[in-house]
């Protein structure tokens, strides 16, 4: 039902077009460099869109979204390495496990509201990192290395990278449609109400604790799969990479840059940020100052443009509000 309703709106097809561009562009002329850059962009879009479910819709800052990504990576790499599971099943298992864990924790910590929730997500990062560093089946602080032979079932390393890329684009597409579908559903309306005024929402009959726990859990699923893919691709995982503060922060910057609460904005923000970052990393002056630049960018947005890119576009071209969600 919801799907049919969505398909009648132009925005549904705009997303489809974006996914098609991502899938086709690098295959023209076998452009590996473009593929790697788009892979990162797809990863940013996935992480930021799912973060946006919490941040933009429900108004809850999750400083620990990286936990989903890292745990998903660990579960997937571990299943592939120790139990020789095929990649597809490992990814699915990673998504389901992390979602279930998030639901479990979510019912606990989401009873905390506003700032306290944000603080406890910082704690979750520390707790999960401490857990993985001490958990011997996951190699403790030295992590897990995958042998080169794991790419064999996917047709060798060269072919496997293309398979991974297409799965990542699919995950990105799923994230965009998920954001869009939630925004157009009753569930999303409830979340937006929570974001506006949690007490009022509760009084009007929105089951706030349940909705918050659900969205927390839903926002964990696709990032966990993305994490599995990412670390499968690099064939190596260790706690400091898996729970890297930088990526967590970048998702926040991206979501704020594009405009929290919007689907288009977050995707646009992710793409722009990836391009900017690619430039910064190659320039020798800025390579060491990536965190500084992310921080400065975030500060400027928070201080002067709290609506982000889409806030600017909406105010300049009010008509776009009807088309771009």
């Amino acid at each position, binding site marked *: 039902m919801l799907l049919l309703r969505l398909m009648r709106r132009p925005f549904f097809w705009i997303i489809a077009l974006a996914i098609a561009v991502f899938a086709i562009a690098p295959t023209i002329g076998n452009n590996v460099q473009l593929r790697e850059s788009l892979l990162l962009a797809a990863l940013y879009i996935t992480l930021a869109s799912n973060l946006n479910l919490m941040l933009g819709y429900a*108004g809850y*800052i999750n*400083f620990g979204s990286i936990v989903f990504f890292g745990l998903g990576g660990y579960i997937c790499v571990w299943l592939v390495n120790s139990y020789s599971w095929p990649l597809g099943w490992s990814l699915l298992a990673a998504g389901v496990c992390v979602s279930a864990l998030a639901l479990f924790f979510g019912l*606990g*910590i989401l*009873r*905390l509201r*506003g*700032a*306290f929730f*944000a*603080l*406890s997500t*910082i*704690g*979750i990062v*520390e*707790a999960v990192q*401490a*857990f993985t*560093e*001490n958990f011997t089946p996951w190699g403790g602080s030295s992590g897990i290395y995958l042998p080169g032979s794991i790419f064999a079932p996917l047709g060798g390393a060269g072919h496997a990278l293309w398979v991974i890329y297409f799965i990542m684009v699919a995950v990105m597409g799923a994230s965009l449609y998920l954001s869009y579908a939630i925004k157009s559903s009753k569930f999303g309306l409830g979340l937006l109400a929570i974001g506006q005024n949690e007490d009022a929402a509760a009084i009007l009959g929105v089951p706030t604790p349940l909705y918050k726990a659900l969205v927390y859990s839903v926002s964990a699923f696709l990032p966990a799969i993305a994490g599995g893919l990412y670390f499968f691709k690099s064939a190596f995982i260790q706690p400091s990479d898996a729970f890297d503060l930088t990526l967590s*922060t970048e998702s*926040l910057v991206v979501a*704020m840059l594009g405009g929290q609460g919007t689907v288009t904005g977050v995707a646009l923000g992710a793409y722009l940020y990836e391009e900017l970052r690619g430039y910064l990393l190659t320039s020798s002056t800025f390579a*060491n*100052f*990536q*965190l*500084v*630049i*992310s*921080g*400065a*960018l*975030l*500060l400027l947005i*928070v*201080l002067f443009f*709290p609506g982000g890119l889409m806030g600017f576009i909406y105010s300049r071209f009010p008509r776009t509000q009807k088309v771009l969600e």
Partner: protein
Amino acid sequence: MLGILASIIDGVLVGLVYGLAAMGLTLIWGVMDVINLTHGTMIVAGMFGLYLLANALGLPPYMALPPVLVGGFFVGVLLYWVAIHRMVGRPPLMSLLSTFSVNLMLVGVGTAVWGTALFNVEVSVPGISMGRYTFPGAHIVAAVLAAVIAGSLYLFLQHTRMGKAVRAVANNREAAELVGIPTTRVLAITVGCGVALAGVSGMLIGTLFPFTILSGDGYQLKGFVVTVLGGFGNPVGALLGGVALGLLEGAVTPFVPVSWTLVIEFVLFVLVLIAFPGGFFASRRGAL
């Protein structure tokens, strides 16, 4: 048995320093409802202030205290104007984001300059022996200094004109403005004091343990736990909360690996928040 007792006494000593570290956080939180996410990095800044003054300039370690205190105050006032001034009165999530982004910049500059290597400042103060156990002198001096600084903060808040203004602003900003208190200046000074406290506590922690540029996260988390234990915006409660946390650490360390203590503290944080939303030692709102 004596081992556990010694461990507990040491926990209290270190806990006083944690309490001091949390005081700056809870002061800012209580007065303007802003959670300062640069707090951990300001603690680390204190540690590096100590390192530079003691190791590079060759000052005796405890002589680093006055410069760190004064420097921290000015850094805090600057922080207020850059990141907090426009956020006061807006949803708390915005100030979380703005202080978070300043923190990123500071951590970014710090890691670019110093890397993530371990730093250490040698402090030689004779310890006090009790049977087979020796309490490190550095722990005792740090605890005494922390108690003295915490006491002076209490006196400042209770008995000076400025301190009373801070409490008035915490209680009701509009009313304070109406009776002629320059609230903006008071807020800036409050952030200055909060950051100065963070710096000093960092300096004291630096005399106890080795540190890296990223140590701040752990101490910031401890700060939240202490704040929650002690009640929000309650500096005296923060000191008690710090001691409670130190006791817990002292009692727990003989039995579990060190890297788990942070997890245990975090679980405590969530449990206390759920069970006592106002904080454990919070007797009344606005204890400032």
